């Protein structure tokens, strides 16, 4: 189905694997297009209740493939390739996990930042590589990074461009958890399946309005919460949650 990525679904989870291992999964324009359609597919598929993005081989993603195109208009590469992908990722109302298996550099790091969770292998690392070639972080990097780690740390990472190990990233809150490389896939799977069995609509609403909170004042957020709660209150999962609580059993959420 795809040339540069793999897409498969199992146990309510869509797995999107960047699949150019020989190029450390660097982005090309084809990969942008394929990522966009994979993300849309995962967003639409009602069976899918969580999404994992990971890399084949030893890298997560090394960012833009700098070989190939000569003298490109970087602005247009972003507008046409990366930006729609980031927008699609953020607008999926399901949890998206970056399973960072190896190095996440440049736009590869941006991709991980745009996800809702980052689970890293102990072999993984993060590099704000842009500065080393005289460029600025892009693909939402300047938006997400300061929001995730704070302004001061974000400046430090973006300007110095030093490699950050998974453990260091964990310390300043960039990753949710670090797991051993030996059990990485199983651990990611367990985490993703756990999310896929949660009340998906509520997670989607949390994601939608937590994202909106960055551009809103308290009055607006209070109103968003009221609207979101009204919506969540009408879901099957809410009823199930309350019923299970009354019946003193574990709820079985269906994402409806």
């Amino acid at each position, binding site marked *: 189905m795809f040339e540069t990525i793999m897409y498969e679904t199992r146990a309510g989870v869509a797995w999107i694997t960047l699949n150019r291992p020989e190029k450390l999964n660097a982005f090309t324009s084809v990969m942008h297009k394929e990522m966009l359609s994979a993300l849309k597919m995962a967003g639409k598929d009602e069976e899918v209740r969580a999404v994992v993005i990971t890399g084949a081989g030893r890298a997560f993603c090394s960012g833009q493939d700098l070989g190939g195109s000569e003298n490109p208009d970087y602005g247009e590469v972003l507008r046409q390739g990366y930006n729609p992908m980031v927008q699609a990722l953020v607008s999926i109302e399901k949890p998206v996990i970056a399973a960072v298996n190896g190095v996440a550099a440049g736009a590869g790091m941006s991709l991980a930042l745009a996800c809702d969770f980052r689970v890293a292998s102990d072999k993984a690392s993060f590099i704000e590589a842009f500065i080393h070639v005289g460029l600025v972080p892009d693909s939402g990097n300047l938006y997400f990074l300061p929001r995730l780690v704070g302004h001061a740390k974000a400046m430090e990472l973006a300007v110095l461009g030093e490699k950050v190990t998974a453990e260091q990233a964990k310390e300043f809150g960039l990753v949710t958890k670090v797991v051993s490389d030996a059990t990485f896939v199983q651990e990611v799977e367990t985490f993703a399946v756990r999310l896929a069995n949660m009340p998906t609509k509520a997670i989607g*609403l949390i994601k*939608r309005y937590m994202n909106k909170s960055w551009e809103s004042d308290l009055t607006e957020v209070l109103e*968003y919460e009221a*609207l*979101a709660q*009204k*919506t969540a209150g*009408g879901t099957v999962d809410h009823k199930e949650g309350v019923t299970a609580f009354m019946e003193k059993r574990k709820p079985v959420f269906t994402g409806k």
Partner: protein
Amino acid sequence: MSKFTTITAKVEEDGIALIELNRPKVLNAINRSMVSELLSAFEQFDRDGRVKAIVLTGNNRAFAAGADIDEMMNDDAITLELLNQFKDWDQLHTIKKPIIGAVSGYCFGGGFELALCCDILFASEKAQFGFPEIKLGVMPGAGGTVKLTKLMGQKKALEWLWLGEPMSAKEAHQHGVINRVVAPELVLEEAVKFARTIASKAPLSLRLIKETVYKAVDDSVLDGMQFERKNFYLLFSSEDQKEGMKAFAEKRRANFKGK
């Protein structure tokens, strides 16, 4: 209510009438019979004493994705002139009762023009507005250029009309084109809730305020104020004015009758 094929129309409780565009297979593309049915429904509700406010909506995917292109594709200028294509559209502006639009999904071209016929617009966070006519080598013909310009100003309107790109609900809101942006799941509900609030107000005031506001858009301040004054005076011949002011003095809720 007459039998309609391209829309559904019904009177709900609490004085609200609901009109839904109903050509889901073509994303509610607006054809001539739809406009004529819309006008007929609006006119019936305008005369129906039970109805205090009218809500107009589409479905989740589209309010209306545009005009029915197939229908006019082979028309020439004289055919359109003789057909008086936009006569029913123009008549939509004669409706006196408040019209609240609830927009989800696509709202393009003729769909956007229809939305702009509403007095108040609620839109889903995911709604998209736009005038893509330029991409078909034409331009809006049912008031789109005029109304967009009056709402957002000449510079911005030209940009949107020339590029023909979709405008997010957030942008439409920032430009003053729509009133509220709400969660997709709740657009219709919130619009109906607003309509209910409106429906509890003095009907004659609603009516004359609507008339005066639209007049103000086109008139000089002084002319607008003269017009306003006549309507202000006119309300003093209503029972509701006496009831409203008496209730105020007696510190109780007014019971308006629309007379």
